[in-house]
């Protein structure tokens, strides 16, 4: 067994400040009314002389600009749980040790993540991406790893012998003694674990209580130390207060990036992808704004989710600045893990295509980005349909050559002496091709199609209604028209 302890020394502060880009003096207080005291503050506040343990009034006297917020223990625990869920991507055994530590059992994961140093680096980088300050220690027992963390000694110990040597150098304060016992040790001149171990065990145990030696045995691996395993929730849901009210997409994205990183860690731990995601932006005294991101395929790529979210936020006008941001997974689907490969493969190309479609749709809307498919119908206007991109078509029906461009609504042609005209008199090159079908539904078609050329030598696909006095219509071009406004409106009508 090998345990990695992840301690968050400034967790009360980080849950408020991790989304902050500016560096204003900030402190967390605990307690009521006049007895409220500072329990944590950032570097800016520390520079002004603010210290932990100081009454809030004293801190305010030092810096009138100091922003003091009451501690939120529930939010801290929720943050620890999110970190634990995120950490499940590294190992299946994760445990939370309140108030501020997450433990990972990493013995079995070392090979996959590039050895002890590689894994440690990945965890450390991940934590800074989430916006938390963390102390990381690795030891063969969970308690020892916790102690090294709380003593702020970022060790990497793999073997029991090395553990005993390093444990002996820890201060005796890690033993979590009662105040009386701690004072006794101090009076006896006992500063480190080594000093404790040098004394007769039974005598010292009688004076400071047997629990201390119990803990020592657990830390050294002589007693079992079972830890409750953390089980991830079935839905990811997290919220993040914003350090300052924000309306610009970029500021919101900065906070959303960390939540998305958490979400993606959770998703890869549970081998899932998110297909629908809800983003809730809270406002002062208004109904919260809800945005729903629907993806074509389930994904757990943080960069991709972020780019979709960026387009979504850019397209949304917020009624007032947001004060908090919340993210909730609506629809999770299992996604197979991707194996690392040197060459780009078909699966990755398909993924790139769905990502492109999603990015375009986030800005242009569902109907702005479509695919095409053929339909089995002889009527030209029913021979195609807009569809979801990537839908396979039915096998192409063998027809005579068709124009590349079709007008969605046939355009009546001017007639000169019963001969059709389009920018000049048309000469018929090929035809007629008779299409007469659709008697079973409301769209009966009885037409004779011709290929025609006008004096400008543009090739057109025209038809004449078969019934008596039938009129001429233009239905397609064998090549593109140059841009005309009417063309756009036709295309858009077709897509709707």
């Amino acid at each position, binding site marked *: 067994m090998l345990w990695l302890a992840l301690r968050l020394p400034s967790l009360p502060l980080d849950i408020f400040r991790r989304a902050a880009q500016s560096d204003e003096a900030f402190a967390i207080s605990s307690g009521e009314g006049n007895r409220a005291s500072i329990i944590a503050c950032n570097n800016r506040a520390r520079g002004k002389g603010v210290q932990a343990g100081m009454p809030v009034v004293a801190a305010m006297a030092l810096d009138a600009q100091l922003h003091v917020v009451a501690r939120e223990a529930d939010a801290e625990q929720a943050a620890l749980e999110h970190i634990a869920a995120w950490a499940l991507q590294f190992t299946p055994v994760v445990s939370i040790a309140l108030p501020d530590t997450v433990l990972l059992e990493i013995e079995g994961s070392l090979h996959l993540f590039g050895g002890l140093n590689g894994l440690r680096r990945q965890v450390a980088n991940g934590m800074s991406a989430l916006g938390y300050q963390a102390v990381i220690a690795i030891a063969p027992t969970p308690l020892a790893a916790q102690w090294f963390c709380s003593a702020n000694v970022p060790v990497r110990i793999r073997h029991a012998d090395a553990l005993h040597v390093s444990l002996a150098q820890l201060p005796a304060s890690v033993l979590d003694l009662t105040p009386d016992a701690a004072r006794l040790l101090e009076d006896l001149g006992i500063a480190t674990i080594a000093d404790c171990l040098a004394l007769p065990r039974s005598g010292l145990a009688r004076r400071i209580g047997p629990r201390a030696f119990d803990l020592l045995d657990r830390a050294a691996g002589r007693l079992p130390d079972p830890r409750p395993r953390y089980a991830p929730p079935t839905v990811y849901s997290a919220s993040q207060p914003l350090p300052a009210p924000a309306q610009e997409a970029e500021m919101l994205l900065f906070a959303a990036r960390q939540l998305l990183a958490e979400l993606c860690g959770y998703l890869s731990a549970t081998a899932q992808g998110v297909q629908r995601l809800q983003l809730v932006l809270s406002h002062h005294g208004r109904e919260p704004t809800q945005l729903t991101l629907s993806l074509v395929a389930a994904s757990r790529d943080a960069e991709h989710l972020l780019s979709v979210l960026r387009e979504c936020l850019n397209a949304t006008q917020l009624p007032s600045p947001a004060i908090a941001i919340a993210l909730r997974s609506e629809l999770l689907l299992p996604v197979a893990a991707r194996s690392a490969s040197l060459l780009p493969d078909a699966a990755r190309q398909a993924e790139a295509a769905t990502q*492109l479609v999603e990015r375009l749709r986030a800005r242009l809307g569902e109907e702005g980005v479509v695919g095409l498919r053929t339909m089995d119908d002889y009527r030209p206007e029913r021979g195609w349909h807009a569809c979801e991109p990537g839908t396979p078509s039915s096998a192409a029906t063998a027809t005579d050559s068709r124009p590349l461009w079709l007008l969605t609504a046939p355009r009546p042609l001017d007639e000169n002496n019963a001969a059709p005209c389009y920018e000049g008199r048309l000469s018929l090159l090929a035809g007629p091709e008779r299409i007469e079908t659709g008697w079973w539904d409301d769209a009966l078609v009885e037409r004779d199609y011709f290929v025609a050329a006008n004096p400008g030598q543009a090739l057109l696909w025209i038809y004449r209604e078969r019934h008596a006095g039938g009129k001429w219509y233009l239905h397609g071009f064998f090549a593109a028209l*140059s841009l005309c406004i009417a063309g756009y409106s036709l295309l858009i009508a077709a897509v709707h």
Partner: protein
Amino acid sequence: MNAAALDTVLNHPAIWRGSALAPVPRGLATGFPEIDAVLPGEGWPVGALTEIYAERKGIGELQLAMPAAARLTQAGRWLTFVAAPHVPYAPALAERCLDLARVLMVNTTVLEERLWAAEQALRATCCGAVLMWLDHAHERALRRLQLAAEEGGSSLLLFRSARVAPATTAALRLHVSRSDNRTVIRVLKRRGGGLPAPVALDLHPWIRFSARAAGLCAADATPRIPGVVC
């Protein structure tokens, strides 16, 4: 001087002849050997911008792009239409061997959105070519697209009307017109230098064929089709 001595002089690396093109990465074969012969990379430039000016509407500009597009989609790359002036007719595309499951249509009336969509498609690794219809765009926007094409290694074919013809950053500029029932393609600009003679192509050979079968000819001013009163 005999021919062998002349060859040694001409093959000397320090000698450059006006008719020789600077080396250009291999392009995407157009499917028309006559056009490939006059293009520097023997095909549509890859990772670059191509502008195609059509003299008049409906003279076969899109037809030019079809064989290359069909080959791209068959190879699994995507083909994106941005702001096509009409609906590309799906059965006609399928008939020209295009894999419709690899076709993406982007429709928007806003110019910025069109440019943005084209840029996104060009940058995406899955997309082989973007066909875009654009009349008025700033040189800066085109430069952006050119960079995106370079980055994504895909081709951008920009269809424009013949009226706009200021100098642009495009790697290749073609002018398409029609005369004598044939489509005439002139190279206005190509990388590597030199301007070749125009190429005339018959893009719709089947029409001539069926016209002849029906006893008609394109030049025939009075078509004899039953039921048509002229």
